[in-house]
């Protein structure tokens, strides 16, 4: 699985993307977030206010209960500020 980060989230994590090999019991975005929170504290600040974070699965806006698998591309980013 590829996980991508943008804007200040990318800066906080210290990288723009990472490859993860997901345990088989992780089947949705919420479970992925819990998993990340467990493996490293640095994720906590990002996900402590989950409602402020936008999620894309395979480049489509998604939600916490969106199903995911190891072949997906997941992105976490703050609300957009273009235009």
């Amino acid at each position, binding site marked *: 699985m590829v996980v991508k980060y943008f804007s200040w989230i990318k800066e906080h994590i210290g990288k723009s993307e990472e490859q993860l090999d997901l345990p088989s019991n992780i089947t949705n975005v919420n479970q992925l977030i819990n998993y990340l929170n467990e493996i490293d504290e640095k994720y906590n600040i990002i996900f402590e206010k989950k409602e402020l974070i936008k999620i*894309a699965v395979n*480049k489509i806006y998604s939600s916490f209960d969106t199903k995911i698998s190891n072949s997906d591309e997941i*992105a976490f980013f703050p609300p*957009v*500020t*273009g*235009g």
Partner: protein
Amino acid sequence: MSKNYPMIKIKIQNEDFDISEETKNLHQNNTGAIVNFVGVVRGLDEKNNQIINSMTLEHYPGMTESEIEKIIFDSYKRWELTGVTVIHRVGELKPSDQIVFVGVSSKHRQNAFDGCNFIMDWLKTKAPFWKVEENNNKKNWVSFNDSDNQALKKWKK
């Protein structure tokens, strides 16, 4: 009524764009009206009363284009449009640089006004771009403006 699909152009680029040229590309036979929106970098962050020296725009390649495409698709389901062009710059920009161009052509001016306004409002809330302002080596990621969510209300049927 059967609808013709408009001519569509979407570009995410570092380079500046030429509004005259883009407007000419939106001229088509029987197109009477073109409405362009041009966004430019402001020299002052009014909320924090901070001079802005430069800003950098990043995006999510692939998703940004497809989100803009969806917005354009929604716009021409609502209004009869003959052409839509969206150009959004990324990378480093200076105050008064052009950031974004949304050009919409139609036979009838109100469709062009509404289509352009609609595309800008949705681009502001959905297209994955993020601005970071730089001032004396301090970086400030611009935060989302709730007035942009409010602006969407006028498009709820």
